[in-house]
């Protein structure tokens, strides 16, 4: 391999690497390795001067392989590939040694780190002689976008994509879009009514010709890859034929079954055939088969008899749709923490302990009490405690801060003060009011006479027939027992209970808190590890409305920039068969999850369809004749790396 000319570049990354790794020593060592023509170190290899240095060396020294020892290839591999290409070298004649994330940042001892860096560089240098020039290809793609979840983030994403003239399918699990925001009364810090700003958007979705809406539907399966996803959508049987139903509401007036309403957080009731809330989109009912008398014992059928258009159809079955999409936006949202899990707060034990979401319904003019704040016995409360951080900032439940509950608690406190004119106490650890107009809002709530007690509400207990909140007033350093008529628990925002299943369907990873994991915590907040699948809103972590809307719009931009390109890039890292070695044993065929390997019955050898192959290498690992290999991850390359990484 006398024609191999390797250039090695060791990055200081400011002090990130140089603090632990003796960088110039590593460069000097690299210079002594076989095939290495030049080895240098530089402050920042990814900077313009760093890249220029590589380009200049390629031209002047006729280098044909480049090794950069710097950060993770997951960070800057594309950067350096481009750099090589602009100097006339194929981007795959390149290897990165990860001496930052895997070395300087994780090693205490500088000497050990330097030795480790040398080994990693040596392995990379040993690998590159086996590299080949590889070329990316492009394939056609589908221009439709799938949006999963019809909360405010999903609605925003769907509307933005649709506005570009591209087709969108919006899938929502519940019978109506609107999500959690549809349940709120007012929104902080402006106190404008949630329904007033959300309803027009919901209507816009139903009226947009570019949006196909599937409510009461779920995603069953996602196959394929970026540009060409094949998605199976299950449209659950609504038992009401949408095209016949006029939304006249006669059916549920007559329905004899009453069950607690999910939308009213258990405070009100609904029928077995119901529209979840008055502004629902679509404004057509659904039968809840689990509680419907007809479905339980075959008797009743009142709604069918009542319906003037014959829209009620008990025999309707689930429908499976298989559709193609270029991009997918997942905006499946969040749920509230169940405060009954912390028995000390008395939820479920005392009548007048409410969750924040219940209070939202209580203060809402269309809620179960028509907006009146009353206790279970109908009296108006004279004193109310709002307990912050229920389930948040608590290692026993969720360690993270739920971010939106401080402001939501302030909003609720203000509404309570206005509606009851009573004493309102906020028990808090810290007030987190970072956001436009948020601190000003906090000040306003204080000035309205709401009490703030710094100290987490430790417990709610009944004493002589009255609720008592026990807490320390941290500022005073004194224990307090505050008697109140009503307690509001400001519950955490948590990942949905089905998040694990949804993540598996879409191939999304989750962070430790259960929310979906973004591709990069700072620079790729909307992407996931799977190309073409984006996330927006609270499924990624707690967010308020402005942030969710911004993410919905951002995810739309991601999807559109993919679609606008019209083509998707296919990685050249694919399997390849050496027909001379292939024994035709067919072992590889069933191993391929993408059915990319076929058997050529004429030549009696395996053949790889590069358009289908994703380059995982499972086939190569299992080929007994060594006929299968993965480009850029060949046996030779990996074995050379293994041997050399241990030689130092």
């Amino acid at each position: 391999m006398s024609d191999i000319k390797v250039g090695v570049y060791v990055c200081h990354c400011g002090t990130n690497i140089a603090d632990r790794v003796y960088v110039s020593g590593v460069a000097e060592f690299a210079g002594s390795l076989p095939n290495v023509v030049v080895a240098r170190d530089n402050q920042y290899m990814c900077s313009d001067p760093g890249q220029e240095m590589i380009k200049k060396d390629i031209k002047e020294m006729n280098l044909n392989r480049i090794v950069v020892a710097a950060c993770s290839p997951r960070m800057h591999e594309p950067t350096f590939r481009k750099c090589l290409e602009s100097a006339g070298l194929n981007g795959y004649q390149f290897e990165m040694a990860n001496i930052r994330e895997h070395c300087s940042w994780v090693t205490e001892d500088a000497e050990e780190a330097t030795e480790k860096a040398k080994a990693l560089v040596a392995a990379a240098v040993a690998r590159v002689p086996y590299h080949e020039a590889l070329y990316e290809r492009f394939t056609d793609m589908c221009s439709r976008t799938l949006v999963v979840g019809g909360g405010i983030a999903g609605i925003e994403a769907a509307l933005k994509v649709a506005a570009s003239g591209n087709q969108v399918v919006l899938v929502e699990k519940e019978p109506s879009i609107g999500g959690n925001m549809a349940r709120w009364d007012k929104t902080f810090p402006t106190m404008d009514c949630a329904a007033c700003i959300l309803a027009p958007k919901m209507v816009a979705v139903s009226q947009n010709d570019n949006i196909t809406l599937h409510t009461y539907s779920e995603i069953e399966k996602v196959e394929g890859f970026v540009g060409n996803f094949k998605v199976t959508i299950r449209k659950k049987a609504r038992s009401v034929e949408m095209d016949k139903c006029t939304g006249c509401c006669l059916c549920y007036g007559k329905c004899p079954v009453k069950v607690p309403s999910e939308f009213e957080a258990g405070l009100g009731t609904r029928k077995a055939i119901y529209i979840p809330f008055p502004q629902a989109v679509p404004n057509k009912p659904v039968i809840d088969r689990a509680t419907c008398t007809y479905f339980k014992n075959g008797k009743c059928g009142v709604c069918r008899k009542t319906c003037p258009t014959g829209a009620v159809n008990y025999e309707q079955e689930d429908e499976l749709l298989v559709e193609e999409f270029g991009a997918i936006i997942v905006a499946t949202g969040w749920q509230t923490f169940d405060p009954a899990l912390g028995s000390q707060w008395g939820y479920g034990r005392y009548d007048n302990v409410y969750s924040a979401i219940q209070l939202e319904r209580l203060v809402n003019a269309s809620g179960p009490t028509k907006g009146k704040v009353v206790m279970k016995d109908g009296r108006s409360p004279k004193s109310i405690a709002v307990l912050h951080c229920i389930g948040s900032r608590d290692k026993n439940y969720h360690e993270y801060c739920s971010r939106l509950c401080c402001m939501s608690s302030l909003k609720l406190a203000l509404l309570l003060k206005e509606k009851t004119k009573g004493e309102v106490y906020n028990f808090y650890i810290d007030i987190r009011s970072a956001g436009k107009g948020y601190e000003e809002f906090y000040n306003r709530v204080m000035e309205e006479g709401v009490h703030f007690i710094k100290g987490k509400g430790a417990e709610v207990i009944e004493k002589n027939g009255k609720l008592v909140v026990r807490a320390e007033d941290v500022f005073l350093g004194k224990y307090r027992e505050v008697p109140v008529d009503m307690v509001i628990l400001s519950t955490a925002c948590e990942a949905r209970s089905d998040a694990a299943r949804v993540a598996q369907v879409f191939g999304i990873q989750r962070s430790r808190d259960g929310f979906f994991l973004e591709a990069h915590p700072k620079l790729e907040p909307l992407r996931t590890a799977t190309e073409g699948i984006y996330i927006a809103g609270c499924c990624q972590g707690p967010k308020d409305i402005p942030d969710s809307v911004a993410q919905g719009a951002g995810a739309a931009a991601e999807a559109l920039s993919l679609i606008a390109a019209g083509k998707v890039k296919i990685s050249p890292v694919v399997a390849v068969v050496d027909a001379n070695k292939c024994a035709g044993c067919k072992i590889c065929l069933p191993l391929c999850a993408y059915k990319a390997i076929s058997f050529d019955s004429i030549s009696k050898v395996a053949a790889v369809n590069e358009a289908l192959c994703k380059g995982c290498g499972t086939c190569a690992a299992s080929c007994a004749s060594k006929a299968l290999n993965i480009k850029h991850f060949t046996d030779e390359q990996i074995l050379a790396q293994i041997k050399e990484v241990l030689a130092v």
Partner: protein
Amino acid sequence: MRYAYYPGCSNHSSSIDYDESTKAVFSALGIRLIGLDDWNCCGTTAVSSVDPLVSMALSARNLALVENHGYETLAVTCNSCYSMLRRAGDYCRDSAFAPAMTSVLASVNRVCQGRVAVRHVLDLLVNDVGVAKIRAIVRYPLNGIKIAPYYGCLIGRPKASFDDSEFPTSMDELLSVVGLEVVPFDRKTKCCGSTLMTSKEDVALALNEEILNESVQRGADGIAVLCPMCHLNLDAYQSKINKKFKTSYNVPVLYFTQLLGMAMGIGEKDLGLFRATGARHKLLKKVSV
């Protein structure tokens, strides 16, 4: 079925009736409790306050004895002993202090690997024996009697065990199986003050007053307890509480094993009922009616 049995110091004096009734109930269920030979005091809060490691070592010695005899399970009646022994097991098994514990025990030729399952008798009755089996041998259901279930603080702390740390329900279940009406009780696991009754009497009396108060407000005829310390404070100090708070509590306080035993038809003597120092006759009278 058989278990090694750790009575604890109180069961040999102030709570001898707890010891007697526990043995009687287990014997009625055909379970042997094998007294641990040469057991020592667990150390409890007192020694932990002087030197936490000494109390852990004392508890661990008991576990070493159990391991040495080859028993897997140690039955414990007292909540404090229960909590101490469980913690000691954890310390020996996996903690930063495990090596220290090993060497301390080695100095007296003992080994504790923390393998023993330390279990409260309530846990054994609910989860090993099961309510069905207990229901089957109830002969005189204690119908018409309202009882406040008071678990005491250490039944599920510092680590939840077989039941919730703050709102356990297993004794509720057991007591309703023998016909008792179990009243809702918010102060189920609020502390009785334990040894503070000796050194900080005013505070401890107030704690017990709150518990007695709720039991009366809930209309309970008595309180069921499962810890000698709770029993002593709630029962023997009632007159002091009445004097201090100008109240007139006359609340029977019984070990849950005594109530079970009564329903099973075990004799008063075997249940140690004659040893009552407090207001017990009130409830007993109701039973005999």
